[in-house]
């Protein structure tokens, strides 16, 4: 389960070696630009998609990597589906459901497809970031970007124990499933009972977590923890890294501007 959870994909690429601060800023900026593009700015969408694919090839992940994983957000697209029918415009097709006729408009389809495309491109930038950046480097980037230190420390400890509790949750689930094979499948009572059992498992995890946190606290104390948060100072960005950052931001800004002006 541990390996399934960690999205980092180690490769010897230039993108993997790039400074996490640069990568985080560029990824966030890409997502921002994507969101700011007008609806139906197809040439810009294509350019951004090409950019993310080129980067994922450069990161030695292959073209399919982000394309496939990017489908993650697809189910949510259904939330935008009504746009097809509710946006006023030239009727494209009619859908007859019983007595009701829904008119799909061209504008509606474009609108829906735009939301979908933006979402698909954005999530690929995020996937590329996490596949090429170790979590510890992400933490360093967060520190550099002034995320509150308390929150960064909590992220760091949480990350460590995520795998442990994911494993414990899995063990509990297997134990439950191996004992509850004969429970009637459909009745409401059985569902409520299953929910209660699941609740018990969550409560169990919670108590274990509480007790573990006390021992972790003792272990931290034993090595000198005093409530203060101490880490190595971050290395300043090299001038070449500044240049790379500036270049990437300039390209993205240009892309955004072009998209906004010309679609």
């Amino acid at each position, binding site marked *: 389960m541990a390996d399934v959870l960690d999205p980092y994909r180690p490769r010897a690429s230039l993108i993997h070696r790039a400074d996490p601060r640069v990568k985080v800023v560029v990824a966030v900026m890409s997502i921002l630009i994507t*969101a700011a593009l007008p609806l139906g700015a197809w040439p810009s969408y294509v350019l951004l998609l090409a950019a993310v694919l080129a980067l994922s090839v450069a990161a030695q992940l292959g073209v399919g990597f982000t394309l496939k994983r990017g489908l993650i957000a697809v189910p949510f697209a259904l939330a935008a589906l009504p*746009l097809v029918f509710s946006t006023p415009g030239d009727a494209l097709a009619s859908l007859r459901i019983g007595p009701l006729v829904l008119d799909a408009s061209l504008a509606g389809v474009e609108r829906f497809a735009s939301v979908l495309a933006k979402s698909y491109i954005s999530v690929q930038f995020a996937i590329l970031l996490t596949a090429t950046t170790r979590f510890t480097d992400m933490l360093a980037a967060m520190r550099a970007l002034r995320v509150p230190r308390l929150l960064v420390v909590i992220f760091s400890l*949480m990350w460590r124990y995520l795998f442990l509790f994911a494993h414990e949750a899995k063990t509990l689930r297997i134990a439950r499933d191996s004992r509850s094979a004969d429970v009637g*499948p459909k009745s409401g009572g059985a569902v409520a009972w299953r929910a209660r059992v699941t*609740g018990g498992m969550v409560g169990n995890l919670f108590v274990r977590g509480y007790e573990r*946190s006390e021992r972790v606290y003792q272990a931290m104390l034993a090595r000198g923890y005093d409530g203060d948060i101490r880490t190595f100072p971050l290395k300043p960005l090299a001038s070449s890294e500044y240049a790379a950052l500036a270049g990437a931001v300039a390209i993205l800004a240009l892309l955004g501007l072009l998209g906004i002006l010309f679609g």
Partner: protein
Amino acid sequence: MSGTAVGSSLAAMGRIAGGVGPTGGPQPMHIPDGFLSVPVSLVFWIVAIVVIGYALRRVSRELDERRVPLLAVLAAVIFAGQMLNFSVTGGTSGHLLGATLAAVLLGPWAAMVVMTAVVSIQALVFQDGGILVLGANLFNMAIVGVLVGYGVYQLVSRALGNRRWAVPVSGFVAAWLSIVVAALACALELALSGTSPANIAVPAMGGIHALIGIGEGLITAGALVFVLAARPDLVAPTAKATAGQKALWIGGAALAVVLAVLSPLASAHPDGLEWVAEQQGFLEAARDPLYSIIPDYVFPGISNEALATIVAGVVGTLVVAAVAYLVAQGVRRRATQQ
């Protein structure tokens, strides 16, 4: 657009509810990037930063450093707890968000920090929810979810008194409501962004989460019963509520009421059919002279009156809650000085 459209859209959202996130559980409430407009995303980022920043300060001021591992480990527990789902029927499954559970066991501020960690890691590492829209997701799950869960739990459990079943029953009600209200907030954000019409998004998200909330409620109640049996000290009711706490419960409950009552209004309003985004979109707003936007609407950039009413309602509730809280604080401070 009428009944049937709502119906089919409900079914569609049901499938969203069944969509399985990378961490194994269905994650219907995590909005991905692309679904919210830039202005809406930024506004919710600001709200999230202010409120969570305050929660962080409260947590580091009031609680000793022991809390750092506690909050982190429990965030990992909630994350893992969300992976535990139980089958309901036909491939759908119930699962946990955990905001109410965290709020009941840790108090509102610590719970907000825990849920912030959970929701942020889900977005940053697992793409469960987007990055630009993280502010909105934090608002729905770490702020609204926690405050509503906490407020409703406190009010209901006080009303029920010291009965044995008060804890699970209040936990169920609070968890159910917190999910429904968070879903309404989510629907309103989608509507404000012009991604989903309010008259569809609100009943669909609300309806689906009225069902999903039952699972949340049952799991939360089950978890509370377990913790109550294993470590009663962790669920022990606080002896006496301060004025500040009371303001917080009322604020949380009021938030629930406002979102629950005004949301259906939004969808019933005929203007709900109009597309908000056309008027409030980033570019359109920039192209139009400013004065042509402002006078007609309650809120600049929002043409839909019902939506504007809701936004005003939500903002108003937050302001009222904040004022009530500050007044209560002032009263308490004066009381301690005397």
